[in-house]
């Protein structure tokens, strides 16, 4: 019985295969047409096919290739708070405006570092909100809502 040697290759193969599958499903109605006059489906489906082949090769290699060294586990707390902060920024920017979305995302992102403190997070948020409003809205004249549609 062969054992899994490199889980990274297998996971990568799964991601690639998933993208290829989505291409085939989403693109099922796109015409291939001929090589001479290619339709909108030709190029993407060819790429998806190549990607699928690479995924297969990686999957095979993950069982027969060299043994990979294991790496330290990523911290879910860091990833969740950074991704969450960026996502909240996007969700809040239109309805709540720049100032509030900055303060909220700075607080959420604060959970990523060891030793979260309300005081320093609020202070950093306030400074960044003031600074960004001055730079981006007043000096550069970017059309960003200072306070959003809620207000």
């Amino acid at each position, binding site marked *: 019985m062969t054992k899994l040697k490199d889980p*990274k*290759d297998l*996971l*990568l193969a799964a*991601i*690639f295969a998933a*993208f290829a599958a*989505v291409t085939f499903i*989403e*693109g099922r109605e*796109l*015409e291939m047409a001929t*090589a*001479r*006059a*290619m*339709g*909108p489906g030709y*190029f*993407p489906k060819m*790429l*998806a096919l190549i*990607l699928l082949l*690479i*995924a297969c090769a*990686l999957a095979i*290699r993950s069982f027969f290739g060299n043994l990979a060294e294991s790496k330290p586990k*990523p*911290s879910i707390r*860091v*990833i969740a708070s*950074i*991704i969450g*902060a*960026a*996502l909240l*920024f*996007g*969700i809040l*920017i239109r309805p709540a405006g*720049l100032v509030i*979305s*900055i303060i909220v*995302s*700075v607080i959420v*992102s*604060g959970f*990523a*570092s060891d030793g979260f403190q309300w005081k*320093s*997070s609020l202070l*950093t*948020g306030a400074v*960044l909100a003031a600074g*960004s409003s001055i730079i*981006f809205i007043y000096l550069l*004249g*970017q*059309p*960003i809502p200072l306070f959003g549609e809620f207000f």
Partner: protein
Amino acid sequence: MELLDQLLLGLSTAATLNNFLYCLAGCVLGTMVGILPGVGPAPAIAMLLPMTFTLDPAGALIMIAGIYYGAQYGGSTTAILVNLPGESSSVVTAIDGHQMARQGKAGLALQVAAIGSFVAGCFATLMIALFAPILTAAALRFSAPEYFSLMLLGLIASIVLAHGSVMRAIGMCVLGLLIGTIGIDLTTGTHRFDFGMIDLSDGIDIVAVAVGMFGLGEVIHELQNGPSNRKANSVPFRDLIPRFSLLRPAVKPIIRGSLIGSVLGILPGGGALLSAFASYAVEKKLAKDPTRFGKGAIEGVAGPESANNAGAQTSFVPLLTLGLPSNPIMALMAGAMIVHGLQPGPAIARDQPEIFWGVIASMWIGNLMLLVLNLPLVGIWVKLLSVPYKMLYPAILIFCGIGVFTLNNSAFDIYVMVFFGLLGYVFRILGAEPAPLLLGIILGPIMEENLRRAMLMGRGDPMVFIERPISATLLIIAILALIIVAIPAVSRKKDVALQEERPANHQFEES
């Protein structure tokens, strides 16, 4: 003399008060970015790109270029004083530069780095001025098959130079091309892969992808690796006054580094990082006593520092002449040009010489500014290092968000950024580099268009790529490169060369 006329035209564009100030702003921002560890030039340019949208095209490009080569200068300062490369191509400088600093020769190391960078920058500017017109002339005669083969060569070069497994890099590149097909098909007007979302019909914005992968990805990565020691060695001011007797051994390495960097920068897929590594290897080979390297050899600072600066500058050549971005930063530059209504490629030098030559001349002016900014003011820059990362990363996060939002004034781009930030982080854990993916996304639509045209020209016969001599040559080079790295012995050597003495936490960032 035609070249002189063109350089004069460039100087007259670059020396206007506005462009001079944009160049200064770019250099100052670049130096800051280079010094701050955890903020590489790619996310910095991506974050600051929206600020340049209000400028005229020449000013915007001058500023972005300044950020890029400014970062090469700044990166060396932290590499020498703190042993923390501010950006990836200074990794090599840290090896001997920091040893020099520990032996009390920090001032000399900084001088060599700054002067070497300046000399290399001037040399590279001249090289660009000489070779760009030749490449432009050649590129103007290219048609669809040549363009397709050229793009393929560019992509394969990025695969060959990617760190780690070749198979993974090919997968990343193909995935990038696939993501590039999202949006309305230009030839037929068909909607493709937009999942019913109107926001996707214009395709995915490359800047949002780059900010996600480099900006957010870098923040997550830095936070996981814990706080690093940022205590800087101090430098007395009198140590910063150049003395030729001490600088003498650096003269030849600077000249060699400038040459190596200028050549490697022009290659598709090349740039600052590759140039620095190559120069270090050459200096070590040529040295009478190679054991001094790693223990504070002045050549180990002079060569790579000159090379990375020259490489950073000449990597503009493929973009400005062939329309081929050779690394993620050039991909962002291409994005900026498109926003300003300029199609990257040979037509710029022909139709808008003042922009083309203005950017080139501004590089020379910028290098002079950087010399003044860096040597006497080094003490001020080092102060930046005392900003704790705890306060820095929320700011990076916010600037990423604002930058991406202002691209199209839409929150959708922020979601794209988040998606690719997460995806990029997963890829990084899985040992797949993002550079080939990014190049694939930007080259995808152009490649498809040229492939279709070429196949139409060849009446459906792929022989069209082989029958045309230029296209055939480009393809042969691409295939050879791929075969060479696929040979196990070479691929092991490549990894050693790219990994040797490289601190684990900075191998990711492009250049």
